């Protein structure tokens, strides 16, 4: 069935954004959740929402930050169910040969134990490399609050860095 649809993102524009940001967003979410399949589902969910709200998302100061935040806050829904119910295309078949779950080091385990807001600040400031002011605008909080959250988070993570047997990440 063919029908005319409105309000769709400009295909080339969304695709360009997606191609430019998807791997980085996936890796950042993966660091936060530690499970490759889960990270994929969350990021796919976030990009789907971005597609649906593209007129809004494209106007944001840092659209990829919106994707990462949405992924971290999203519940696994359609994408995860879909993977259980049907066999997927080649792109997922290729991924199936990898380890599904990352065995993370103490630093990443500590990152995942941080309170949500501290983890968001660390993700935006250190993984997405946003400055304090931009992070504050993205999160809708004061720059000073960003600094306070980051200070607490880094103090927590610091102990893991200083451990001599700390393992960063393994696959």
């Amino acid at each position: 069935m063919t029908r005319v649809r409105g309000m769709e993102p400009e295909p080339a524009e969304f695709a360009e954004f997606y191609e430019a940001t998807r791997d980085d967003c996936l890796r950042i979410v993966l660091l936060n959740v530690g499970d490759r399949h889960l990270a994929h589902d969350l990021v796919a969910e976030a990009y789907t929402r971005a597609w649906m709200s593209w007129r809004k998302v494209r106007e944001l100061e840092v659209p990829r930050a919106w994707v990462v935040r949405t992924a971290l806050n999203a519940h696994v829904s359609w994408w995860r169910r879909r993977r259980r119910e049907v066999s997927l295309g080649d792109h997922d078949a290729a991924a199936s040969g990898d380890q599904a779950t990352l065995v993370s080091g103490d630093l990443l385990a500590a990152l995942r134990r941080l309170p949500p807001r501290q983890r968001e600040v660390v993700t935006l400031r250190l993984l997405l490399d946003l400055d304090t002011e931009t992070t504050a605008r993205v999160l809708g909080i004061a720059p000073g609050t960003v600094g306070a959250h980051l200070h607490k988070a880094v103090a927590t993570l610091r102990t893991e860095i200083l451990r001599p047997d700390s393992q960063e990440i393994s696959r």
Partner: protein
Amino acid sequence: MNDNDTLAAVRDSLTTAKGSLAGVHMNTPAEAIAREGRARRRRHTLTCLGGATAAAAGAALAITALAVPGHPASQSGSPARHPGTARLAAWTVTKQVDGDITVTVRQLSDPSGLQSTLRADGVPASVTPVASPDPSCRPYPMTQALFTSVYQADKATGAGTTVLTINPSALPSGAGVWLGAAFGRQAADRGLHRAAVHQTINHAVHQPVHQVAPGADNGVLRVGLVSVSEQCTGS
């Protein structure tokens, strides 16, 4: 180690960890994302429409909305995919190769013409103003599942245009379609609260409500099912 050193060390560690994932790729194609977004939007639209039904009345379902009177026919909104395509200023009816009927509504006018066109395409149909339904028509029991199998609604390209797709093969034996044009005040008079009209339009169309005419209320196109009869649906 002072605060800056600590921050730098944490940043370096996280950057290194991210760098170790260089072989991890998001391989889902962009088109798969768009396809799912498109499907969700369609389901969302239908869910909103279904919700409006329960709030409104009977078997009729409120769907979206209308354009400005006098708005010229948009050729881009009525693609010529079929030699049987009829082009009219207010609406376009196109019979698809799979038998679906696409009704592109730009303005709610000439309901009798729309009714005749639908019947000519083999759809038992009654098209009336909501305020003055055909007294010979009897509502056919509607369920959400039946509604979604018969009707699909999309916001079309171009301001104020709504595309309604009718799947005649999903019509139960003895059932025909009913389309009713209602403007805001009429909708309210029929028990569809003005706020509900706005909510329906906003959720379904995802854009600000259109003014039907200066000072006038907003329009909605309502759809439902009726029992077929010679008097009501022409067959």
